[in-house]
C-alpha cells in the first residue's frame, strides 16, 4: 500500500499537477517601508523562464517593484535537482499597504500577501535599550526575587528592578518551520520584524544547502545606519558571535557560521561590542583559534578604528573614551556570575579578570550616550539560557540577578534621559518551575524525602547580609527547588553544583546521551529518566509565551498577544525608522 502511495506521489510531482511554489517573504510577512529585502520564488519542478508569471496587486511585478527577477533554471542539493527559482535581491517598497503577490509557472501557483508598514515621521524615543534575557522564564524571575530579596509570610522582602517595569505583552515565539524555537530565529524576529526558521538569522530559510545565500531581510542595525545617525551597542556574556548578539547585525541560515558572523559584525561596525568569543577572531595559526582561515579579526577591528579591551581593567579604562570599542573577555562564552564572582569555578582560574554584565552595560551606556543622535543598545543576559540547558538552576538564577542589576543601570539612566525606551524580554522560555524547597534538616538520608511541597516547603533561608543583591551562600540548608519538565537521562542531586556547571548527560559511542555518572555517587542522588530523544544533550526550550515588559516613550505600542516579529514594528515606530533622519 505504502509503495503504491509513494508511486502516486512521484507521478503527481512529475506530472506537475497543481502544487504550490514557495514565496519569500512568506505569506503575512510584515515589511518596513523602504527596507531592503530579497524576494525569492522556489518552484518544485524545473520550469521555463517564459512560463513564470508574477503579479503584484494584479499588475506586472516589474511595474510595482521596479526591478527584474533573476531566473535560476535548476537549484540543486548535491546532485538532486530541486526545481527552478527566481530571485530579486535588495528589493524595497516605499509605500505602505497590502501587496498581494501571485506567482505561477505551469501548474505551480502561489499567492501571498505582504503588509508593508510605515512609521511616524518623528521618533518617540531618542534611545532604545533592549534587554534580552536568553531563555528568561517566569521561574527565573521568581527565583531571582526570592534568592536576592527574601520572603516573609508570603510577601517578597524587596523588589527586583524588572519588577517595576510594566508587563506589556505576551510574545509568541514559534518559528516558521516549527512550533518550537531557538535563540537564532527568535532574536531575528525581534531584530528584523520577520519570523524565520530555527537556527536562521536575518534571512528566510530557503531550500539550497548554502547557508549564506538565503533571502535576506534588513536588521535593526542596518535600518538604524540607513535612516539615523544613532550609535549601536551590543553587550552579551556569550560569544559576541552567538545567535542573540549576531541577530542584531547578521544574515545566515545557520547560526553556527560564527566565523562569518564575526565578519558581518565588522561590516556593521557597531560602536560598542562587548562579550566573549575571541576564539573566532584569531587566525587559525594562533593557539586557541576556532577559525579555519588566516584572517586576524583583532587586527581588522583595530584597523577599522576599534580600541580592543580584553579584561576588566582595560574595559574600565575605556569608560569615557571616544570611538569604537571591541571588548572580548573570553575565548568562548564568559563564565557565569556564580563562578566569576563567588565560587571561582568554570574557567575563572584561566581568565580571572572577566568583567560582568553590569560592568559592560555601564561602559556601553557611558560611551553610547555621548551620541547627540541617540543610540540603540542590546544587552543580553546570555547565560540564563546557557545554564538552564544543563539544568543548573542556581547558576541560571544568579545570572538572572545580574541581568536585573544591569536593568537597574538603565533605569537610572532613564531618570535623567526620559527619552529612552527600555524593553525587557526573553527570546524564548524554558520548561522550568519552582515547586518548593529542599531542606537538608529534614530527617533521613534520602534527598527526595527532603523536598518540601505545599506547606512543607516553608521558606528558603538564603541571606544577603552584605547587601550586594546576591545570596551570601548558594548552598544554604533550605533552598529553592527548581525543576525542568524535560531533559536527558541524568542524576538529580538536589544540591547546587559547587564544583562547576552541571553536565547532566554525556554522549556514548552510539551518539546517545546517557546520565553523567560523575553525579551518581552524590549522597541521595536519584536517577531521572529522560523524556526527550536520546540525541538530546540537555533540557530544551519551551513553546510557552514570553513576557515582554517596557517603559518609556513608545512602550504603549506593546499590548496583548503579539507575534515576536511585531515587536520590531513597535521599535521601528519608536525610532521612526520609516523616516530619514540624516542628511
Amino acid at each position, binding site marked *: 500500500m505504502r509503495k503504491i502511495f509513494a508511486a502516486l506521489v512521484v507521478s503527481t510531482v512529475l506530472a506537475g499537477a497543481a502544487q504550490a511554489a514557495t514565496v519569500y517573504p512568506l505569506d503575512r510577512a510584515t515589511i518596513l517601508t523602504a527596507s531592503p529585502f530579497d524576494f525569492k520564488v522556489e518552484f518544485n519542478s524545473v520550469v521555463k523562464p517564459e512560463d513564470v508569471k508574477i503579479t503584484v496587486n494584479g499588475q506586472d511585478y516589474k511595474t510595482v517593484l521596479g526591478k527584474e527577477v533573476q531566473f535560476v533554471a535548476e537549484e540543486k542539493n548535491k546532485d538532486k535537482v530541486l526545481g527552478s527559482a527566481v530571485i530579486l535581491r535588495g528589493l524595497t517598497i516605499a509605500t505602505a499597504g497590502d501587496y498581494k503577490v501571485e506567482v505561477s509557472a505551469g501548474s505551480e501557483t502561489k499567492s501571498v500577501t505582504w503588509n508593508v508598514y510605515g512609521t511616524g515621521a518623528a521618533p518617540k524615543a531618542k534611545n532604545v535599550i533592549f534587554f534580552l534575557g536568553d531563555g528568561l522564564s517566569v521561574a527565573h524571575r521568581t527565583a531571582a526575587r526570592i534568592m536576592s530579596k527574601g520572603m516573609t509570610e508570603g510577601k517578597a522582602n524587596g523588589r527586583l528592578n524588572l519588577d517595576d517595569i510594566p508587563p506589556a505583552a505576551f510574545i509568541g515565539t514559534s518559528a516558521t518551520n516549527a512550533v518550537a524555537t531557538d535563540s537564532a530565529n527568535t532574536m531575528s524576529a525581534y531584530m528584523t520584524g520577520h519570523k524565520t526558521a530555527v*537556527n536562521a538569522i536575518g534571512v528566510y530559510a530557503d531550500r539550497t544547502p548554502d547557508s549564506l545565500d538565503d533571502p535576506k531581510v534588513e536588521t535593526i542595525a542596518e535600518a538604524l545606519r540607513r535612516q539615523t545617525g544613532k550609535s549601536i551597542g551590543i553587550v552579551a556574556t556569550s560569544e559576541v558571535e552567538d545567535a542573540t548578539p549576531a541577530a542584531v547585525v547578521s544574515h545566515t541560515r545557520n*547560526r*553556527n557560521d*560564527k566565523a562569518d558572523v564575526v565578519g558581518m559584525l565588522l561590516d556593521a561596525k557597531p560602536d560598542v561590542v562587548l562579550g566573549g568569543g*575571541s*576564539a573566532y577572531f*584569531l587566525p*587559525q*595559526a*594562533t*593557539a*586557541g*583559534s*576556532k577559525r*579555519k582561515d588566516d584572517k586576524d579579526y*583583532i587586527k581588522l577591528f583595530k584597523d577599522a578604528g576599534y580600541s580592543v579591551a*580584553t*579584561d576588566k581593567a582595560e574595559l574600565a579604562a575605556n569608560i569615557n573614551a571616544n570611538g569604537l570599542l571591541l571588548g*572580548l*573577555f*573570553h*575565548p*568562548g*562564552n564568559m563564565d557565569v556570575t556564580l563562578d566569576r564572582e563567588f565560587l571561582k569555578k568554570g574557567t575563572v582560574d*584561566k*581568565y580571572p579578570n572577566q568583567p560582568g554584565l553590569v560592568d559592560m552595560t555601564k561602559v556601553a551606556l557611558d560611551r553610547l550616550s555621548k551620541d547627540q543622535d541617540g543610540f540603540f543598545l542590546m544587552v543580553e543576559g546570555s547565560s540564563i539560557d*546557557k545554564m538552564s*540547558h*544543563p539544568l543548573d538552576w542556581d547558576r541560571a538564577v544568579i545570572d538572572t540577578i545580574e541581568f536585573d542589576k544591569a536593568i537597574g543601570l538603565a533605569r537610572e539612566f532613564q531618570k535623567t534621559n526620559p527619552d529612552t525606551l527600555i524593553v525587557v524580554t526573553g527570546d524564548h522560555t524554558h520548561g522550568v518551575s519552582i515547586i518548593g524547597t529542599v531542606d537538608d534538616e529534614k530527617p533521613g538520608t534520602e534527598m527526595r524525602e527532603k523536598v518540601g511541597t505545599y506547606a512543607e516547603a516553608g521558606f528558603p533561608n538564603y541571606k544577603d547580609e552584605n547587601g550586594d543583591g546576591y545570596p551570601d551562600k548558594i548552598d544554604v540548608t533550605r533552598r529553592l527547588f527548581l525543576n525542568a519538565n524535560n531533559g536527558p537521562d541524568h542524576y538529580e542531586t538536589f544540591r547546587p553544583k559547587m564544583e562547576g556547571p552541571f*553536565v*547532566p*548527560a*554525556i*554522549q*556514548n*559511542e552510539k*551518539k546517545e*546521551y*546517557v546520565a*553523567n*555518572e*560523575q553525579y551518581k555517587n552524590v549522597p541521595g542522588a536519584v536517577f531521572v529518566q529522560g523524556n526527550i530523544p536520546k540525541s538530546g*544533550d*540537555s533540557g530544551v526550550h519551551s513553546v510557552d509565551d514570553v513576557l515582554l515588559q517596557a517603559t518609556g516613550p513608545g512602550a504603549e505600542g506593546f499590548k496583548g498577544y503579539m507575534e515576536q516579529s511585531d515587536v520590531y514594528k513597535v521599535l521601528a515606530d519608536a525610532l521612526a525608522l520609516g523616516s530619514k533622519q540624516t542628511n
Partner: protein
Amino acid sequence: MEKLFSLGFNRRSVLGLAAAAPLLAATRSAVAADSLGFGELYGKYSVLGLEFSEKVKKLAGRQVAIRGFMAPPLKAEAAFFVLTEVPMALCPFCSSDADWPDNIIVVYLDEKQTFTQPSQTIEVRGKLEFGSWTDPETGFVSLLRLRQAEYGTV
C-alpha cells in the same frame, strides 16, 4: 603516579578485559613515556591566544602518556578521537561540532581500537605534536595531537 607510567599496555588484554581494573599491571611496555596532565598543556591563557607550556614544547616529538576521557567519534570513519579532561557532552549548549573546549587533545590511533564508554578513564600513549593542524578528511582543527597512539582503560 610515577610508578604508573612505567607500566605498559597490551592491547589484546585491554580489549579482552576492558572491565578489569588492575589491567595496567599486565605487561611492561618497551617504550618509556613521560606523563603529561591536562593542567600542563598551556603556559599562558589569554583572550588573544594561548601559549603552549614549556613542558609541551620539551616533550614534542616524544612518547607521552595522558589520562582523560574519550569523546564519542565525530564520524564513524574518523581516524581520530578527542581526549578530554572530563567526560563531556559534545558542545553542551548548541548543535555544532565546533565548540570544543581549548584543552582537548586529538588522538590518532596507530591501529583501530574499540571505543570506550564516555565515563571510563583511559590512558593514551603516543607521540606528542603541537601547533595548529587541520585534519584533511574532516576539517577538524587541533592544537595538540598524539600520533601513532594506543590506549587502555585505567
